[in-house]
């Protein structure tokens, strides 16, 4: 063992024997199985379809899909550092106050502006909060919904990205103090994605939005049902905390 300035070389760099090297290698070669990875993500309430054993079909090269990919990629670049795998699965963290520059796709600018405006609404917003929570959505919000809808293509991975985008828009609305618009977007989400993968996230969002829109009784009832139907997972912890407030 070489002691230079009190920093001994790792044994693996200079094993005394072949057996020692083989044993030390065994110590470093432990991996978590794919099955465990999926189980962990599921337990944490995180999406894991990108780990499905079936290879997803190649992405159809439509304008909507390209635009979506551009926004997902550029969004990921400014927010939380994500691994390549994350980006492929379409995880889109929200961007507060950041200027997202999408790639130069023809349709990118309009939807991009809609997206950043959704996150940083101009102050003349207040008149829009009077919008009813039905199909009559204010134009900007309706545009966000249609962006998400148009971006729904065939392959599983992109449906997920579209769902994330839709929920993202709803969250942004909620966090900027417009729970009714958020509820409207959530209704669109329900219509656009009949078999939603992010149903749990959407429900938690809905509970929050209902509560903030002044419909606390309904929010409570939905929260109680949620906890009953999904006893495990981190999301349930959050809902429970809401119920305890």
């Amino acid at each position, binding site marked *: 063992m070489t002691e230079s300035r009190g920093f001994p070389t790792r044994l693996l760099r200079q094993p005394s024997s072949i057996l020692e090297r083989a044993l030390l290698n065994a110590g470093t070669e432990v991996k978590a199985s794919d099955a465990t990875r999926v189980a962990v993500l599921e337990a944490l309430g*995180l999406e894991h379809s990108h780990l499905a054993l079936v290879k997803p079909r190649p992405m159809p090269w439509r304008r909507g899909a390209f635009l979506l990919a551009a926004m997902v990629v550029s969004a990921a670049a400014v927010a*939380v550092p994500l691994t390549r795998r994350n980006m492929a699965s379409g995880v889109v963290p929200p961007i507060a106050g950041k200027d997202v520059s999408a790639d130069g796709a023809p349709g990118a600018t309009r939807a991009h502006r809609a997206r950043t405006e959704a996150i940083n609404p101009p102050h003349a917003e207040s008149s829009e909060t009077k919008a009813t929570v039905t199909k009559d959505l204010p134009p900007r919000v309706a545009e966000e919904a249609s962006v998400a809808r148009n971006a729904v293509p065939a392959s599983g991975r992109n449906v997920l990205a579209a769902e994330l985008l839709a929920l993202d828009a709803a969250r942004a609305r909620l966090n900027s103090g417009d729970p009714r618009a958020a509820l409207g977007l959530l209704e669109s989400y329900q219509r656009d994605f009949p078999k939603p993968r992010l149903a749990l996230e959407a429900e938690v969002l809905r509970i929050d939005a209902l509560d903030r829109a002044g419909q606390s009784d309904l929010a409570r009832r939905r929260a109680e049902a949620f906890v009953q139907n999904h006893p495990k997972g*981190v999301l349930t912890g*959050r809902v429970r905390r809401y119920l305890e*407030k």
Partner: protein
Amino acid sequence: MILDFPSAIAPRHSHPAFGRVREEWTAMNSPGRDARLRAIVEEHLDMVARVLRNAGVTEAQLDDEIQRTLITVARRLDDIRPGAEKSFLIQIALRVAAHARRTMARRKEVDAEELPEFVELDRSPEQLTDQKQMRQMLDSVLGRMDDDLRLVFTLYEFEEMSMLDIAKLQSIPQGTVASRLRRARAQFRAMVAEVEHGRASKVGA
């Protein structure tokens, strides 16, 4: 608005007002939180498996203990400073492993192959390349080391943590880490030598 910000600027515990805001913030809809959690799983899951395994968790227990570790980390995500995820994960994994070992010891009906059996060295080249056998042998060697020494040994040799970081993690002086590492290596080497010479015995401290 604080709700949109990723946990990089999560408010500290000390200020009472922040405590209230933080509670609301974490109660619902933290997409930054989800992304952070996902990144932790993507980057560190194998490391968690390794730390657990080398701390004495058996193959049969491993998947459950990996899940237990990550769920614990997820619950305490707000306590983790950004950038400190790795060391937090290791701490939790070590605690989970210690608990799993205690549970194992308490259960009288332990499967024969769960015990760190001393694997005989048959001196065949195949054995050295047989991962399963090498792993079993390593399990038995590590299982026979003193807990304190094994801890420093595995963190230094397998996780490649610095002695300073190990000292911080365990809240012990660096000198103690250095001396434990020396003794751990001595134990390790002595036991490997015993295996090589075909004699199975526990090496005294």
